[in-house]
């Protein structure tokens, strides 16, 4: 009995060996840092490492929340993500409907390719493109557009109040193509006989959109929105670090949790605060992901992540 079980397991040994290299990588790259989150409760000492450093209880966390930064980065992170979710959903659906209703397949392909392309750019390239528009002395906005409108030049990289608008626009420019893709595939999945029946009944285009497309898009919309809400504590580090060119004068509207954690980490004196902010992000972020998934599961089981 024992022997046959051992023999049976032996057959599977090659499978476990194949799994092993990737598993080792995940242990090092993903699981070890999870354990390393305890650094938020330690007085970090470079020579002693994470696990050797002395415990300091909630000191780092208390310090973090005593600063005004904690509020600013939380506010910015949530504000930007909420704006991105709303705009990407509304515009994403609009573009998807438009793209599915173009004159011919060829135009459809051109639009789809064009709007997807910026999504593949690195944040560094994105910051160069934005700089060509917003540079104080050579940017096309200050040199051509504003004078043509009779307005004064603006020092974009030191005026915080413009950045909420700029970052929302830049993010839309970059990611709307990707965002509309999933809606396009949902629309393409709708049974064409629905439209034919609607047309026979004399339904207008708007009626078709409202009564056929929206109902069939609703599960996708709700799932995507909930999943994004689950990730509302994480932001695109590149967008917030590279595009504003790390300019200190506009931190009040460009600093998010990810950029705050990075900057604290690089100024070695601030590892404690940075670790506290990172811990705060990981834990609240994880709770939100679980919550979002729970809600998705409630109304559409097949769309839940797990």
């Amino acid at each position, binding site marked *: 009995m024992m022997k046959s079980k051992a023999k049976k397991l032996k057959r599977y040994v090659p499978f476990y060996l*194949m799994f092993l290299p990737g598993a080792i990588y995940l242990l090092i790259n993903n699981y070890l*840092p999870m354990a*390393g989150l305890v*650094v938020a409760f330690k007085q970090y000492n470079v020579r002693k490492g994470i696990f050797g450093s002395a415990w300091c209880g909630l000191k780092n966390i208390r310090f973090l929340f005593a600063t005004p930064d904690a509020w600013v980065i939380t506010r910015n992170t949530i504000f930007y993500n909420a704006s991105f979710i709303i705009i990407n959903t509304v515009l994403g659906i609009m573009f998807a409907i438009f793209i599915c209703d173009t004159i011919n397949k060829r*135009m459809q392909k051109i639009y789809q390719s064009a709007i997807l392309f910026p999504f593949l750019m690195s944040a560094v390239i994105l910051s160069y*493109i934005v700089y060509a528009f917003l540079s104080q002395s050579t940017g096309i906005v200050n*040199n051509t557009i504003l004078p043509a409108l009779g307005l004064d030049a603006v020092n974009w990289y030191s005026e915080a109040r413009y950045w909420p608008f700029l970052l929302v626009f830049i993010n839309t420019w970059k990611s709307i193509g990707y965002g509309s893709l999933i809606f396009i595939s949902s629309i393409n999945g709708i049974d064409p006989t629905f439209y034919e029946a609607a047309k026979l009944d004399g339904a207008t285009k708007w009626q078709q959109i409202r009564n056929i497309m929206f109902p069939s898009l609703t599960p996708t919309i709700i799932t995507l929105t909930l999943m994004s809400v689950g990730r509302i504590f994480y932001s695109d580090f590149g967008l917030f670090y590279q595009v504003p060119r790390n300019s200190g004068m506009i931190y009040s509207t460009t600093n998010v949790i990810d950029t705050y954690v990075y900057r604290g*980490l690089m100024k070695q004196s601030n590892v404690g605060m940075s670790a506290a902010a990172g811990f705060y992000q990981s834990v609240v972020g994880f709770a939100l992901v679980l919550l979002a998934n729970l809600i998705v599961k409630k109304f559409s089981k097949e769309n839940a992540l797990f």
Partner: protein
Amino acid sequence: MREKSFSKFQILANTVMIIWTIIVILPFLLLSLSSITDENTLVANGYSFFPEKLSPAAYVYIIKSGVKILKAYGVSILITLIGTAVNVLLSALMAYPLSIKRLPGRRFLNFFVFFTMLFNGGIVPSYLMWTGIFQIKDTIWAQLLPNFLLSAWNVMMIRTYFMTSIPDSLYEAAEIDGASQVKIFCNIVIPLGRPILVTMGTFAGLSYWNDWTNGLYYIVKNKNLYNVQNLLNQMVNNIQYLATSSNSNVTSAASSIPSTAIQMAIAFVAILPIMLIFPTFQKYYSKGLTLGGVKG
């Protein structure tokens, strides 16, 4: 009659999409135009869609005397090739066992991979580990190892593809013939899984090519190890530094900033490979996304 009620909406749809397509394309046009604009024109008139004077000087400079720049391209290409190859191999090796339904402990292994998508330790512990325990700071490993060598998402996508596209009967036949698992992996799984492996390889390659974070975190002193993105990023930092400080280090920072046209030329060359892989990427996405996803 039907034509008419449709065309009104189509005109609106096409107008909006044409305008947005132009909004998307123009910035890339500006970037490529400024890379072939004469530097003096650029400084005097700023960036422009109608440059007064064109000049190939930036590209000539890169080819003739841009040792630092060419080296950075070398690092980008090398890391992208090695990283992608290792990534695809590791992912396929990991995805195959996960796709075997009768494998004991499969649920646990699945969860082990999947959990990394839900929760992560973030940059602080990662940074302290990679620099403290593994000592990768200022070595070429820094560009290769952290974050991009394996992604749980890719593994899950490949696993789902294996499960749905490779019939179990093939495995059974091979096992009856006495083929080893290694042989089955090489002769059945890899060839039949090619479409998904190429697609996921494209994603991995894109992440390596576009990555600037590893260089930012881990390459501090040894700037020979910069990739193109790091080089571009460093130029931005130097310009910011010049704009905000007035001490004696300024000259050394200033001397390491190439002209605007050269910066734009470097950026343009960094975009080129993305144009090459774009069709593969799009082909997948236009029919993909519904592939079955990451659920297990």
